[in-house]
């Protein structure tokens, strides 16, 4: 009881120093949480991907297409519920920095493979009826202000020319993991145009999405699909959507590793600040600790005082930092636009923040408290800061 009062008084003795340390803690914990959230966002595509869907693509690499005729062959494989082809469009909306994924899809079937996309039935019909129609995600629509009936022009990079689309439907995500920053339009529109301008590039599919009756058979069915096209001009590589997404993430892994390292550096920096504060505090109060000891308090009491103060400041700063993480993360997500389709602070992130705060408070008090505990009363009373 006595100890608590003393700890509180001690912490408030140097108001400026405590305030500065608190600000440092808040900034560091905030940065730590934000960086971990960026790493999470990197893996968001993987988290949102389904294991009951397969992606079939050209085994050489994604830039090589597959023939349209594969649709039938894949559908005949046992255990396949449905299949739909799609092409990565890679168009530019006004400026290259306005990046969002665009796919030319088989309008009749593709959207049905993704139960996590929630569409109004009427809007969906409107999209399927209009060959120039497109479907956009809620987040994308909000970012660029797309409304139903708007005309959107994309400049093709892979498929030359300016392409006009009319927004016919806007989809919502089933949960927070669903990416609602995508753009879908009719594969037929793409194909008809290509037939006219570049006949060589017509009737080609970038990748097939395959829906399975039983997800447990994913590996077996993947092998079976690939076996169908073995030794043909376009051999395939089939994997689950999750593995496919993970493949993309692993290509940029170096950046993720760098962000992780830097996020832990943030903790080290704040540890240095905090440890410094505690070292100075103890140094200044050497004479006081000696007095306490002379009055009969044991070393344990002095250690409690120091640990208590360190933990108090750390927990307070940490709590403010964690509380601020949520509004700052959502502001950051808005600023980044469609670059990170999903940007949520996860429970793991908060747990990591709490753990690092406790560690910082503990380690910062470790050395000073050992010094204070071992203090010789006579030397302590004589000391000047």
């Amino acid at each position, binding site marked *: 009881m006595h100890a608590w009062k003393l700890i509180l008084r001690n912490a408030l003795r140097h108001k400026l120093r405590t305030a500065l340390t608190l600000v440092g803690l808040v900034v560091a914990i905030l940065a730590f949480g934000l960086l971990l959230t960026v790493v999470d966002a990197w893996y968001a595509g993987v988290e949102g991907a389904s294991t009951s869907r397969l992606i079939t693509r050209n085994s050489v*690499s994604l830039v090589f297409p597959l023939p349209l005729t594969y649709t039938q062959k894949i559908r005949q494989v046992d255990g396949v519920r449905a299949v739909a082809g799609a092409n990565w469009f890679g168009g530019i909306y006004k400026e290259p920095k306005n990046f969002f994924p665009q796919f030319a899809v088989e309008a009749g079937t593709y959207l049905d493979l993704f139960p996590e996309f929630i569409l109004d039935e009427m809007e969906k019909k409107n999209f399927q009826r209009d060959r120039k129609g497109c479907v956009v995600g809620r987040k994308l629509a909000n970012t660029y202000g797309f409304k139903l009936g708007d005309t959107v022009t994309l400049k093709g990079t892979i498929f030359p020319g300016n392409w006009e689309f009319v927004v016919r439907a806007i989809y919502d995500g089933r949960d927070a993991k669903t990416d609602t920053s995508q753009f879908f339009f009719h594969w037929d529109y793409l194909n008809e145009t290509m037939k006219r301008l570049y006949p060589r590039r017509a009737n080609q599919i970038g990748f097939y999405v395959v829906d399975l009756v039983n997800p447990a058979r994913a590996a077996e069915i993947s092998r079976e699909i690939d076996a169908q096209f073995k030794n043909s001009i376009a051999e395939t590589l089939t994997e689950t959507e999750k593995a496919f997404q993970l493949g993309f993430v692993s290509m940029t892994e170096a950046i993720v590793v760098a962000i992780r390292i830097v996020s832990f550096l943030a903790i080290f920096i704040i540890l240095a600040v905090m440890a410094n504060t505690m070292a100075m505090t103890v140094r200044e109060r050497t004479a006081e600790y000696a007095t306490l000891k002379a009055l009969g308090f044991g070393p344990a009491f002095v250690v409690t005082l120091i640990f208590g103060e360190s933990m108090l400041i750390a927990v307070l700063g940490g709590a403010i930092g964690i509380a601020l993480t949520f509004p700052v993360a959502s502001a950051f997500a808005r600023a980044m636009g469609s670059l990170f389709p999903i940007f949520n602070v996860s429970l793991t992130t908060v747990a990591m923040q709490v753990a690092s705060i406790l560690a910082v408070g503990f380690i910062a008090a470790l050395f000073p408290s050992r010094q204070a505990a071992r203090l010789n009363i006579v030397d302590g009373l004589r000391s000047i800061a």
Partner: protein
Amino acid sequence: MMRIPFSYSLRNLWTRRLTTVLTAGGMALVVFVFAAVLMLDEGLRQTLVETGSPDNVMVIRKGSETEMQSGVERDKAAIVESQPQVALGQGGLSIASKECVVLITLNKRDTVKPANVIIRGVSPMGMVLRPQVRIVAGRMFRPGSNEVIAGRSIAERFEGAGLGETVRFGAREWTVVGVFDANRSGFDSEIWGDVDQLMPAFRRPVFSSIIFRLASTDQFDAIKQTIDDDPRLKLEVKRERQYYSDQSAALSKFIRILGITLSVIFSIGAVIGAMITMYAAVATRTAEIGTLRALGFRRASVLAAFLVEALLLSLIGGGAGLFLASFMQLITISTMNWQSFSELAFSFTLTPEIAIKSLVFSLAMGLCGGFLPALRASRLGIVDALRAA
């Protein structure tokens, strides 16, 4: 005006060793991050700038941002190649290479994770156009054969890309007969073969790009005009250097924004650390400051002494951070370039300019953290300060 000796500031730092080390340590970490980001950006820039030669010009299809997405028909390529601005080499052949650039997926050696690697089919003039590319092991591929040569960083890191190994793509086996060094340019992350073999293997009837050397540097505008004005062509003309620096724009911007944001956030922490240290230094030395003032040192001298102390502190931190960062030069980063979707290896590069920037940055942190405490020290009244002991 009498100045307080420099050794006063220096010895004060030495007396409070633990505090000095902790404060300087925090600053060192911040300067380390700051310098590392600048070095990474510089490494990326150098890699891609080195990739292009000043006199080389790249021609791709209009609207396609990269070679991978481009397609140039044979007849169009022939028109470009026969322009008068294209330099002529031995035997009157134009120094131009019609190339076919595609991505293939290869597994990395250490992790067996797949990554996209650029395969470039080059014409016989391809090597002449890139004087920085030298074969360091094995030999050049023979035209018309299933032979390829691999860039140094691909040969080291990818399965099947080492000397004497084989890679399979386009329904054929390709033997790696040579490893080339491209002087740390982007070509180090590519595999090269004969364009006339690769195009049929990938079933591509069109080239991806044409690269040629200008007969003289100042003719760029002329040939750009000619090609832009020709309605048959629909091609885009860029200097090779420009093309490669455009390629890295997104990655470079990402690194810079992330780095600056982090540096700013972290420097707040470090400035606070310095401020706490200096305030404490002032508080514990109140009587000392009073004595100095009583001895006749002016307020300005006290201010200067404490500022020098803060700057020294930050210089120690900055120096240590820079020293640590210099070891980062040993590390090579390899990641996917978003614009080309292909693997790109580059390393941290330290330049004198970055070293100076980092030290200035650390001094600025010291100044920010030290100014207010130093001001407080200089404002202390002599009598009050002397009584404080």
